[in-house]
């Protein structure tokens, strides 16, 4: 069992820094999702572990082994990429056996390990097929089987589901979760731009943006207690409202709100209040925001309301309404104080 440690890892191409002083530890047996928009440095971090990019400074450790200077084939990681990268000239079983043969595993054991890996991914029936004869989802299962056959301590997954359509994706997500339960010793680094994948699968999520680590925590923490505006808006949907911090609460456009204080923002300072749309309810209550209804969308089980509160757009998701208020009506929304989080004001992001 071994985890992954990034120690102050910086990667640059010429003058462009694509990964800026990353410090991060993936614990043994843990699934860590690297979540961020494209260009955030998450793929670079993964490729630094695999050995395809060389850090300008810092160290990468697998377990307690410093692998920074090791070539890719000596690192002993499994890797699954978005475009599958199955060898087109080999049948499925030869693809899965490739790593074992490359590592000169005893011939007798190879067949058993291949069978086991195919069994685990449900691809036993396809062992004699060529990759081009398989669907995208099946190819990705083979790619996972190929990576698992060498029994790596560390599995790197680079946007593994991005090339699949939405329906297949949710099925594969459940499969990956099952694999993680069956292989509790394998540490996984899972790069994705999709928050659903990250929240569903990961034990912890590292949020990245602009080559930097922005936030790291359990999915629950990141969702309920984000520590930055970027995390709040990138992980789930959020209302970010400019407030002034007061003693024991906050002031939003003249309305006093009773919200828990934040450690790093002092009374009198400006801050951002984060409230998830689905935690707002219609009607007056403990923390009430009043405004004009400007948009109403029916989304099946819910209604999405957009309310103009003192010039700010507040989104609320409420259970499907029998009788929706007309556009332009005055409405009140309220939320429980403990459902809101005060954040230090940062640079607003779309």
């Amino acid at each position: 069992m071994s985890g992954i440690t990034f120690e102050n890892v910086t990667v640059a191409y010429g003058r462009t820094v694509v990964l800026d002083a990353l410090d991060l530890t993936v614990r043994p047996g843990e699934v860590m999702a690297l979540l961020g928009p494209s260009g955030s440095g998450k793929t670079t971090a993964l490729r630094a572990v695999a050995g395809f990019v060389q850090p300008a400074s810092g160290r990468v450790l697998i377990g307690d082994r410093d692998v920074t200077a090791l070539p890719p084939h000596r690192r002993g990681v499994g890797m699954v990429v978005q475009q599958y990268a199955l060898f087109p000239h080999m049948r499925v079983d030869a693809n899965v056996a490739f790593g074992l043969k490359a590592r000169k595993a005893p011939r007798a054991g190879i067949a058993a390990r291949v069978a086991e890996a195919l069994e685990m991914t449900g691809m036993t029936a396809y062992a004699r097929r060529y990759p081009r004869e398989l669907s995208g989802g099946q190819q990705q299962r083979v790619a996972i089987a190929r990576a698992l056959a060498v029994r790596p301590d560390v599995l790197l997954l680079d946007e593994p589901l991005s090339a699949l359509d939405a329906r297949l994706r949710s099925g594969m997500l459940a499969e990956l979760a099952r694999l993680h339960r069956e292989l509790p010793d394998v540490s996984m680094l899972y790069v994705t731009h999709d928050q659903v994948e990250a929240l569903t699968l990961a034990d912890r999520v590292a949020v990245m943006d602009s080559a930097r680590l922005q936030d790291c925590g359990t999915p629950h923490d990141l969702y309920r207690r984000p520590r930055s505006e970027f995390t709040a808006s990138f992980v789930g949907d959020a209302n970010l409202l400019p407030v002034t911090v007061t003693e024991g609460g906050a002031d939003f456009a003249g309305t006093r709100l009773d919200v828990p204080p934040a450690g790093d923002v002092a009374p009198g300072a400006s801050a951002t209040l984060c409230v998830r749309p689905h935690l707002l309810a219609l009607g007056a209550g403990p923390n009430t925001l009043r405004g004009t209804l400007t948009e109403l969308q029916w989304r099946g089980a819910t209604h999405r309301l957009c309310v103009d509160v003192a010039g700010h757009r507040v989104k609320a998701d409420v259970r499907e309404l029998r009788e929706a208020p007309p556009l332009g009506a005055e409405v009140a929304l309220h939320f429980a104080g403990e459902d809101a989080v005060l954040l230090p004001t940062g640079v607003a992001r779309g």
Partner: protein
Amino acid sequence: MAERGGSEPRTRPFPFPGGQAPRTPRGPRARGAVPAWALALPPLAVLGLVFLYPLALVLRQSVSPDGGGFSLSAYGDVLAQAAFRDALVNTVLIAVGATLGAVVLGFALALVIAFVPFPGGKALSRFVDVFLSFPSFLITLALLFVYGTAGMANGLWTGATGAAHGPFDFLHTPWGVLLAEVTYFTPFVMRPLLAAFSQVETAQLEAAASLGATAPRIVRRVILPEALPSLAAGGSLVLVMCLNEFGIVLFTGAKGVTTLPTLVYGKAILDGDYTGACVVAVVNIALSVALYGLYRSITSLNGVRRARA
């Protein structure tokens, strides 16, 4: 057939997942593994022994005729010969003429194949590929049957007019060489052009046509600028190949038409004058390699432009 004279893009952007593509994906190298420059040594050694070293010997023999001491006397001798000056002028004139002919003809034919498509056009481009893999002297051989003293064209003429001799008697003149070279080298211009034309978007042409542009105007304003780099690359390669052409001139068998390559052959094999042959060879190499350098810089510029686009 692969790219003989093609100007394909040399590099393709890596499909890097998720992020921007770094220019040089350099990973760490295994400790104790063979470095890249050492990997290049064995083929370089082979090339050195069988190509570079012999070329160096040619250069040495041309400047030290008797195997000792530096002397440019051989150059003086050769450059003073009228035969050499004629050969040089012939070579350059025929090469430039043949290149111009091949460029014009190749552009026109490629234009039709690419933009006025007809059934069998694909088979035709395959035929062009096959054409490229045949030796040049076959063209001269064929022309002997078409325009030779007792060939098809003259036969038709004498049959129709009853004259004793036909009017076609240019095969053993520089014009015969020119005709054969234009024929043989036109496909070398067409291939890169067809590749470039396949990059021109139909939508662009249709947009231009819908704005009222006439066909000649579209060719001049839309297609030609797009094709110009490939045309320049193909043209300069053909120029080099024309300068070096030997088979066509040899088969023409004309005493009056000597070019630098046939002069090298004549001096070395027929006269046994190796030093003279080496001098002519050095002049020919200088001419061709200079032009080839031009071709390489054009193609690498094209590569840069493509990478930026």
